[in-house]
């Protein structure tokens, strides 16, 4: 087994990796940027190396500096976490060239599955289901009509060079097709200087369901079932579950999707942990979307339900070990739900909320798993993702898990900045969410249609008034303590009041 592992990441995932490494009695090395000298992962690691300035391009993305640090400290292996260099084949290759084990798949597998279009072609080649459509640009309207008729309306026009919704058009009937192609092409031309558009089947109110796989370097590979990640905002997952309520109601889906995921992975000789993302339509057809060739943010819900430790498995496999589990050993028990706690203001367009955290209250008790990267007194750096923590619960049923998560969110508290904690409590009370009727547009619909109930209890108002008054009396009589941070707040407050 390895003696020393470098964690090429920051935040909650770096902390999670350091914990797993420590539990295996291996030394951990943290890397950090100058903005992160006081970060929790630096505090917790056995050793720590500064990589450079705050921008990731100067620090967490610098392959050269990370490899140099690893060599100097006698590191055996590097875990990349998620994001940053985790899906960078050059980095995986640089590790191998330096005689250091990259805890993840082979560079070749990263390359072959890293591009969405390459992965899609690979999936098609082995007969795995993908969203039907053309991938070559449409030239001739007559041809477009035929294709659209084949895959069936509604269809989606997408800019070949595109992204971010530009040059995208929904088409519901053949009558609208030609005009829509013209509009989409000209928009694509303006946005990307490339007018090419192609046609894809429009999956309405799709679910995003993904399959966790893991394999060793001896040819053994299993799946650990699905995660439902339909609750997204700006294409970013915010609530994840295992099992998916849909799959729980239709258990045959798990075996079918698991087998599809394993077939794709086997086709590229994949090993270590990976995730296949699928779209699922209203008829429970599933379509391969893309693969993430790394540990997923939302891996804890799978760990809670299958009683496994994916990071430990990753390390064991990277060290040449064999998978300890067969597919038959994998058992799913109960239900887990995770929510991603961000420094953002749900009442103000989800704008990031910066500042120093004064209190950080960590919930405890039965069935709680908190993966956190923060502590009281920490200031979230502006340079990185504003994910503060992942709060997950496990319970015997999904219904109980929702109730437990509400309890736990009530105990969670960060002061000094704004978070989406209360927003989650509102979503958990939503009847559609409770019923498990999820789709990727859920939050947008929720924000448009549903007005969260506001507390009208007059007792609350009186209590809030009293607490503020007692605090203000004490606050004003305080000549010294907290003066520094308070004046910073006031300066910001004064400035803001100009609006």
């Amino acid at each position, binding site marked *: 087994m390895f003696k020393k592992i470098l964690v090429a990441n920051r935040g909650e995932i770096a902390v999670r990796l350091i914990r797993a490494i420590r539990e295996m009695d291996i030394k951990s090395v943290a890397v950090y940027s100058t903005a992160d000298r006081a970060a929790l992962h630096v505090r917790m690691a056995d050793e720590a190396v500064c990589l450079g300035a705050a921008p990731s391009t100067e620090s967490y993305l610098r392959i050269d500096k990370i490899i140099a640090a690893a060599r100097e400290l006698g590191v055996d292996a590097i875990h990349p976490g998620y994001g940053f260099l985790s899906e960078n084949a050059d980095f995986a290759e640089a590790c191998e060239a330096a005689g250091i084990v990259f805890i993840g798949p082979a560079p070749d597998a990263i390359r072959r599955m890293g591009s969405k279009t390459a992965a899609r072609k690979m999936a098609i080649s082995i007969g795995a289901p993908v969203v039907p459509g053309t991938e070559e640009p449409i030239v001739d309207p007559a041809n477009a009509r035929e294709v659209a008729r084949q895959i069936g309306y509604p269809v989606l026009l997408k800019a070949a060079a595109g992204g971010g919704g530009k040059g995208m058009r929904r088409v519901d009937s053949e009558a609208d097709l030609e005009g829509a192609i013209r509009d989409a092409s000209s928009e694509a031309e303006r946005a990307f200087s490339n007018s090419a558009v192609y046609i894809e089947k429009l999956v309405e109110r799709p679910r995003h369901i993904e399959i966790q796989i893991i394999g060793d370097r001896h040819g053994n590979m299993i799946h650990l079932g699905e995660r439902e990640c339909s609750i997204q905002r700006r294409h970013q997952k915010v609530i994840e579950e295992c099992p998916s309520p849909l799959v729980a109601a239709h258990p045959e889906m798990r075996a079918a999707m698991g087998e599809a995921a394993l077939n794709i992975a086997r086709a590229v000789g994949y090993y270590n942990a990976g995730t296949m993302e699928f779209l699922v339509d209203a008829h429970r057809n599933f379509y391969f979307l893309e693969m993430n060739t790394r540990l997923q943010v939302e891996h804890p819900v799978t760990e809670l339900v299958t009683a496994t430790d994916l990071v430990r498995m990753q390390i064991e496999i990277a060290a040449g070990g064999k998978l300890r589990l067969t597919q038959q050993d994998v058992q799913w028990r109960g239900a887990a739900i995770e929510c991603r706690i961000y420094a953002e203001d749900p009442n103000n367009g989800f704008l*990031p909320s*910066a500042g120093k955290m004064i209190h950080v209250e960590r919930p405890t008790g039965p069935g709680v798993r908190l993966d956190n990267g923060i502590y009281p007194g920490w200031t979230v750096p502006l340079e990185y993702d504003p994910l503060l923590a992942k709060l997950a619960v496990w319970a015997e049923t999904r219904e109980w898990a929702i109730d437990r998560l509400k309890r736990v969110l009530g105990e969670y508290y960060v*002061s000094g900045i704004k978070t989406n904690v209360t927003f989650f409590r509102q979503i958990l009370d939503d009847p559609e969410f409770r019923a498990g009727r999820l789709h990727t547009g859920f939050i947008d619909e929720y924000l448009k249609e549903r007005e969260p109930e506001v507390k009208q209890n007059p007792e609350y108002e009186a209590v809030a008034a009293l607490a*503020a008054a007692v605090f203000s009396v004490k606050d004003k009589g305080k000549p010294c303590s907290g003066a520094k941070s308070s004046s910073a707040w006031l300066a910001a407050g004064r*400035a803001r009041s100009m*609006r």
Partner: protein
Amino acid sequence: MKLLLTIDNRPGELTFDHNDQDYRFAYQSDRTDGRLHHATVVEVEPGIFSILLNGHSHEVKVVNGPEGYYVDLEGHRSVVEVRDPRAISRTGRGGAGEGRQVISAPMPGKVVRVLVAEGDSVEAGAGLVVVEAMKMQNELKAPKSGVVVAVKAQPGATVAMGDMLVAIE
């Protein structure tokens, strides 16, 4: 003691006195009837108050926020301003003219794009400036229709929370 409060911009008046942890108080606003309450109040951690009122246990968290005190209770946050009627107001809030609206940076970050110029007419909801923080681009929108009378935001510039970016009249 008497204090004037606003809770989420709704005014009210608090009268209270206390003997150690035991408080007598009344809060009069458009939602409350202003009757006298008895409560015990303990600051269990700095800024965290355990209040027992009519047998109900409330945990109230208070911190100094930019617009006033942030008061968290049962998962709901209120912004509370407290003024002592005998003294001057706590901070010299306001000052912007009725017709003028200043759009300032809601968080520290970097100006990515400026979408308007002085003299432009804008509709309410139109994008004005894009500020990036924590890897996310955020478009600040016009709070009302009007004419852009000032543009302080410069593309590429770093801004502090509260820095003025654009003014509309």
